[in-house]
């Protein structure tokens, strides 16, 4: 039997020492264990370990201790896997962390427990783990912040709008790629430059003060401002300037976001021009329509008067001159109506290739001999549907302009060309006129080497009544523009002072097919029973007299409803109806449709200057219908009546 007194040294070491005999009774308990466990040796010795300390009486521990008691190898109970072997309470009510080794000492027939206190180490490990975890979290947060910063700076660097950061005095600290692209300045060029002095054009002297007042009050400044590029040119920009404050709320920097709005301004300008054009078209169309009606009345009266004064040669001569002057007035009105897209539109199919050759012949009479007229045609027929006369007038107007531009020039030269339009070769035109992307277009070009058109004049040349010539009507190019638009085409011009101008006509061509010219046959004249409908008595009366003078029988109606009533009374008696298109109560088209319910074969002549799209669309689809514009050419009208009536009668 061994006793503690045999091993006094054990009371002077830092480890806890316990020994048990084969029966698991405690035989050694050193002073360190007394201190740790708070039990005196006397209270412990001779007691069974597993009974006294039930924490050791669990399977995994007890079995391993018993293996040692059987002479087996030593066992280790680490603090990591067991925390402690024998509970030794600390002041904080937790237990000391222990690492225990149990070894069999054969000589003494005891199992010796050497228990090392690892509380401090354990605490250190826990603290280390906690710190490591905190560090890891901080690292993750920092990485996330760095990623976010990188994304933000990449976003600013690659943003579509220019971004500039300045200090609070407006000195540039940073500019992004878009800024460099917009202005041509690079970052070092403008570093530390005061942006408002160097880059803002025509600033008022108190602008920076006003701006700083706003920014210091935490407000954002927004507005338009011209920005000076490196090459000294400038562009309009939409600008927003905001203050950047630090965590203490002090403003340290300004951020400026600058968007180039020159494209937007150009679109706004184009829109304004379009609106102006539309207003002009409405105004011109209205005046021309009224004037047309007056002319119609006048021509009729003059025609009648000239017949009545057949025996007064001088008066008849004057009447003829009045007729001539009326005809000229009517030509001006026609041009106005073409500009306003309200004129008579005689569309037919024809090849532009032979058409343009004929036009060259005509042009030779117009262009003086001292100006060279050359042409350049591509092969191909360029089938086209349109009003040949109107197109000819439009091209002549452009040609006149070219001739005048070359007046007084040495080696004046006008080139007329016809080519296919290849969209892919003209990206700038596609951008300007997206409609050119769709369908096939012929490209007619009229180029001169004359004095050219100054830029400020160029934008107005298609306005009606705009003329730089003292005696110019200002209608020529306006009519040309109206005509080309009427044909769903594009009229464009480029010009450089002292170099010359070039007018481009892009006309939509048809799919290739043979163009058939219509043949007119003569018909014998016969008296016709005519129902004449018009709401304007100034037209109605003279036209009645005109028709009667031609030998026809005429009845009148003042609008569509009255016309239908008159027609119904004796529907089979009428040979032809001549009706105005636009009338109160019921228009000409509706009236004629009603009449055709009774007499489907009744020929109808629509007389109008209004709304050709409505008229042409519906009248083309109707058989035995014709459209003429007011004022009438008396002979033309008579011929038409005779032809249509004869056709019906077969």
């Amino acid at each position, binding site marked *: 039997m061994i006793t503690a007194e045999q091993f006094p040294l054990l009371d002077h070491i830092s480890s806890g020492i316990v020994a048990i005999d084969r029966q698991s009774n405690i035989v050694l308990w050193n002073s360190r264990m007394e201190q740790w466990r708070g039990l005196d040796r006397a209270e412990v010795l001779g007691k069974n370990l597993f009974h006294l300390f039930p924490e050791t009486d669990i399977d995994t521990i007890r079995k*391993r201790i018993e*293996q040692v008691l059987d*002479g*087996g*190898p*030593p*066992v*280790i*109970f*680490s*603090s*990591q*896997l*067991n925390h402690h072997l024998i509970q030794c309470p600390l002041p904080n009510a937790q237990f000391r962390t222990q*690492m225990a*080794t149990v*070894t069999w000492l*054969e000589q003494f027939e005891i199992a010796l427990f050497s228990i090392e206190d*690892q509380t401090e*180490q354990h605490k250190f*490990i826990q603290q*280390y783990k906690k710190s*490591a975890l905190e560090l890891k979290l901080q690292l993750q947060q920092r990485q996330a912040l760095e990623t976010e910063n990188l994304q933000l700076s990449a976003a600013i660097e690659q943003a579509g709008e220019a971004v500039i950061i300045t200090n609070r005095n407006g000195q540039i600290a940073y500019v992004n790629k878009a800024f460099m692209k917009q202005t041509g300045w690079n970052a070092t060029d403008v570093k530390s430059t005061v942006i408002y002095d160097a880059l803002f054009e025509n600033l008022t002297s108190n602008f920076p003060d006003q701006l700083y007042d706003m920014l210091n009050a935490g407000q954002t400044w927004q507005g338009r401002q011209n920005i000076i590029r490196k090459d000294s040119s400038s562009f309009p920009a939409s600008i927003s300037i905001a203050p950047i404050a630090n965590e203490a709320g002090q403003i340290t920097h300004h951020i400026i976001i600058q968007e180039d709005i020159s494209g937007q301004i150009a679109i706004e300008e184009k829109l304004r021009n379009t609106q102006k054009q539309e207003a002009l078209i409405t105004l011109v169309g209205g005046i021309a329509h009224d004037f047309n009606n007056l002319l119609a009345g006048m021509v009729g009266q003059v025609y009648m008067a000239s017949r009545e004064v057949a025996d007064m040669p001088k008066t008849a001569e004057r009447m003829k001159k009045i007729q001539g002057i009326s005809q000229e007035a009517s030509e001006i009105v026609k041009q106005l109506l073409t500009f306003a897209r309200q004129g008579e539109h005689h569309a037919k199919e024809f090849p532009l290739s032979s058409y343009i050759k004929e036009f060259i012949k005509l042009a030779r009479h117009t262009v003086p001999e001292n100006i060279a007229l050359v042409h350049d045609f591509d092969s191909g027929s360029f089938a086209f549907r349109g009003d040949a006369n109107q197109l000819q007038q439009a091209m002549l107007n452009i040609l006149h302009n070219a001739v005048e531009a070359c007046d007084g020039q040495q080696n004046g030269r006008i080139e007329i060309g016809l080519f296919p339009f290849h969209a892919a070769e003209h990206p700038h035109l596609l951008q300007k006129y997206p409609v050119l992307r769709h369908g096939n277009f012929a490209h007619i070009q009229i180029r001169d080497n004359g004095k050219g058109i100054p830029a400020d004049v160029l934008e107005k040349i298609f306005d009606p009544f705009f003329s730089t010539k003292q005696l110019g009507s200002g209608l020529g190019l306006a009519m040309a523009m109206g005509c080309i638009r009427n044909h769903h085409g594009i009229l464009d011009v480029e010009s450089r002072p002292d170099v010359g101008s070039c007018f481009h006509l892009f006309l939509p061509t048809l799919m290739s097919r043979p163009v058939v010219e219509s043949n007119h046959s003569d018909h014998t004249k016969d008296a016709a029973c005519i129902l004449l409908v018009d709401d304007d008595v100034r037209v109605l009366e003279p036209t009645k007299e005109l028709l009667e003078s031609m030998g026809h029988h005429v009845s009148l109606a003042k609008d569509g409803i009255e016309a239908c009533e008159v027609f119904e009374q004796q529907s089979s008696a009428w040979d032809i109806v001549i009706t105005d298109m636009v009338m109160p109560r019921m228009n000409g088209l509706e009236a004629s449709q009603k009449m055709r319910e009774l007499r489907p074969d009744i020929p109808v002549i629509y007389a109008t200057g209004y709304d050709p799209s409505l008229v042409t669309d519906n009248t083309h689809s109707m058989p035995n219908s014709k459209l003429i514009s007011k004022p009438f050419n008396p002979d033309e009208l008579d011929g038409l009546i005779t032809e249509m009536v004869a056709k019906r009668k077969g």
Partner: protein
Amino acid sequence: MQITAEQTDALTELVNIGVGHAASTLNSLIGHKIRLVVPHIEVVSLDDVINNPEVSSSNDISAVSMGFRGSFNGNASLMFPIESASTLVCVLNDEPPESEQLDELRSGTLAEVGNILINGVMGSIGNMLAASLNYSVPSYHESSLADILGHEQNEAVLLARTNFFIDELRIEGNILLFFEIESFHALINAVDQALAA
């Protein structure tokens, strides 16, 4: 030094039983299946062991060793590549894999695990051979195999080596039993007696 095929077989079975016992203990500790390779028994010099790529690598290893003396003398070791040791410590301490470890934490945990496994092997062998053995207190090292095995590397030893794998955790390790040549006869006799019994 010769060892008969029958003796080799007997020793192989003996070690296999011991290691099997140890493996089931480890299995209950970590809850993952342990795959054992049949033990390899050979007479070699420690140099050969150090140069054997299946045991050693250029990197440091984690090892728990325990000497024994008595009926026969030798040393039992459990060895892991450092990565496997770290993974095992994480699993046993319920920590996420790849977490930072202190040496203190690793040495304490691995010392106990090694102790359990080696005791399983040695307890089983000792019982079967009815051997009387004294054991040293297990020690933990992280070093090269040459440093762990000590200086007398030309010495011939009987080596019983068992390779084991915990596939789910990608852990591999070796249990090595070295028997000193002087006590070889005592061991063989004990084996022969066990066979006769």
